[in-house]
C-alpha cells in the first residue's frame, strides 16, 4: 500500500513482530516444557515470570498485591524492579513489544488484512485518551474497596498465558478467556481499543514512563505534513504534533516506518519535557 521504497520497508514493524512472536513463544512453549518434560527452569507468564532465579513481576499485579494485602514482601518488590526500570527509561514498550495481546492483535490484523484485502481499517469510535488514567484509578480503587485484586485474574495479557497453561495442563480452558476474545473483537471497532483506553497495566506503565528517555521526536523542518504517521499510529496518536513524546505513546515505531521523509526518529533524551 505504501509505494515509495526509499528506505527499508516497515523496519520497526518487522522487528516488533519478531520480538512479539518471541515473547509469545516463551509463554506458548513453556507450559509444554513444564508439563511434558518437567523442565522448571522457566515458570509463569507475563504476570510473573521466573527464569531460573531471576523473577519478574508485573508492576500492576505487584502493586495490587501490596495494596490489598497491605503487606510488603521483598522478593515481590525486587521482581518489579526490572519492569519498572524498563518503563522509566523506555515507557510502555512492554505493551508494543512483548504483550501477548499485542501479538494476537497484530496477528488478527494481518489475518483480516489478508482476508478482506489491503484496505486499512478506520477507527469507528474514538474517546478521550485520558480515559486510560481513569481506567487505572478506577481499577485500583475498586480493588481496594473490594479487598480483592481485579486485574490479577482478569488481565487480558495474563489470561492469554493462563489459558495456554490451562489447555496444556488440564486440557480445558477457563471461562474468563472470553475477555481475550472481547479485547480482540474491540479491535474491529477501533484499533487497540482496549490498549488505548482501558488497560490499567498500560496506564501504569505509561504513568511510570511519562518522563521516559526514549521517545519519538519529529523533525518539523523535514516534515511535509502528509499525515501518514497519524494514520499509522495504532493508538490513534498524532506523532505529527509531537504526541510521540506523550506518555500514551508505546514506542512501537510504526510512525517511523510510515514516514517517507525520515522526519520521525527514536530519540534518547536526557530529560524529556512534553
Amino acid at each position, binding site marked *: 500500500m505504501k509505494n515509495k521504497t526509499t528506505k527499508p520497508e516497515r523496519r520497526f514493524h518487522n522487528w516488533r513482530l519478531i520480538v512479539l512472536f518471541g515473547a509469545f513463544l516463551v509463554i506458548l512453549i*513453556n*507450559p509444554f516444557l*513444564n*508439563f511434558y518434560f*518437567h523442565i*522448571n527452569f522457566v*515458570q*509463569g*507468564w507475563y*504476570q*510473573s515470570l*521466573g527464569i531460573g532465579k531471576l*523473577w519478574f*513481576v*508485573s508492576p500492576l*499485579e*505487584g502493586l*495490587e*498485591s501490596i495494596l*490489598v*494485602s497491605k*503487606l510488603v*514482601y521483598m*522478593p*515481590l518488590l525486587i*521482581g518489579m524492579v526490572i519492569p519498572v526500570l524498563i518503563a522509566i527509561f523506555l515507557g510502555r514498550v512492554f505493551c508494543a513489544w512483548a504483550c501477548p495481546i499485542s501479538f494476537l492483535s497484530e496477528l488478527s490484523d494481518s489475518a483480516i488484512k489478508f482476508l478482506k484485502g489491503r484496505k486499512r481499517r478506520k477507527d469507528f469510535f474514538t474517546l478521550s485518551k485520558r480515559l486510560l488514567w481513569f481506567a487505572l484509578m478506577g481499577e485500583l480503587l475498586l480493588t481496594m474497596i*473490594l*479487598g*480483592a*485484586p*481485579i486485574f*490479577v*485474574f*482478569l488481565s487480558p495479557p*495474563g489470561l492469554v*498465558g*493462563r489459558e495456554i*497453561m*490451562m*489447555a496444556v*495442563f*488440564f486440557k*480445558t*480452558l*477457563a*471461562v*474468563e*478467556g*472470553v475477555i481475550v476474545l472481547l479485547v480482540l473483537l474491540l479491535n474491529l471497532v477501533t484499533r487497540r481499543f482496549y490498549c488505548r483506553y482501558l488497560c490499567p497495566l498500560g496506564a501504569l506503565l505509561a504513568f511510570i514512563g511519562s518522563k521516559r528517555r526514549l521517545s519519538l521526536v519529529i523533525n518539523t523542518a523535514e516534515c511535509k505534513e502528509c499525515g501518514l504517521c497519524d494514520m499509522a499510529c495504532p493508538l490513534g496518536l498524532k506523532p505529527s504534533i509531537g504526541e510521540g513524546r506523550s506518555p500514551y505513546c508505546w514506542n512501537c515505531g510504526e510512525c517511523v516506518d510510515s514516514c517517507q521523509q525520515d522526519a520521525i526518529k527514536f530519540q534518547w533524551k536526557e530529560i524529556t519535557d512534553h
Partner: protein
Amino acid sequence: MERRHFLKLLLSTIFVLPTTKADAGFLSSPVATNRLRPPGAVSEETFLGKCIRCGRCVEVCPYRSIVQLDMKNGVHAGTPLILAETVPCYLCMKCVEVCPTGTLKKISQEETRMGIAVVNRFTCITWRGEAICRTCYNVCPFKEKAIRLDELRPVVDEKYCTGCGLCVHGCPITWKEGLKAINVEPIHLMKGSTQGI
C-alpha cells in the same frame, strides 16, 4: 475448524467443570474439606489479596496436585487449589520456592500445615471393626508421628499432621461425593469448630 475446536473447549468448561465446587459464590472461599491451599499458604483472607494468580506454583508442581481455579470461583479465579482425594500433595515443596508474592511462605515439609486429617470413625472400616485396613497409616509421609495405630485403628496426631492429603487419596472408602473415611480439614476452618476428634 480452529474456532470450532476452541468453542467446544469453552463450552466444555462452562458445562462440565462446575462439579468441582457446587456452592462457589463470588466472594466465598473455595477452601473446604479436602479442598486445600498449597503448602505454606497464608491465611485465607490474605490469600485472596496477596496471590497474583501467576500460576507458577501450578506449573512447577511435578505431581499436578495444584489446579488453578477459574471464574466460577468468583474473585478466587486463578488461585491454586489442591483436591486432596484426586491428587494429594506430595510435599516436594517446589511451589513454595517459586511463589513471587510470599503467598506461599518458604517452609519445610515438617512445618507444612495445609490442614489436619480427621478420621471419620463411623465410616472407617477399621474403626467399625469390619476389616483391618491401614492404608492411611501406610501412605502417611510422617508415619508413626502424624498417623499412629492404636489397637490397629488409625489415630491422627495434629501435632505432626501436615494435611498433605496422602491418606485421603489412599483411603478406599468413599461414603459421600469427595469424602473419604479420612479427610483433611483446612486449619483455618477448624478454628472454633467442634468436629475435631
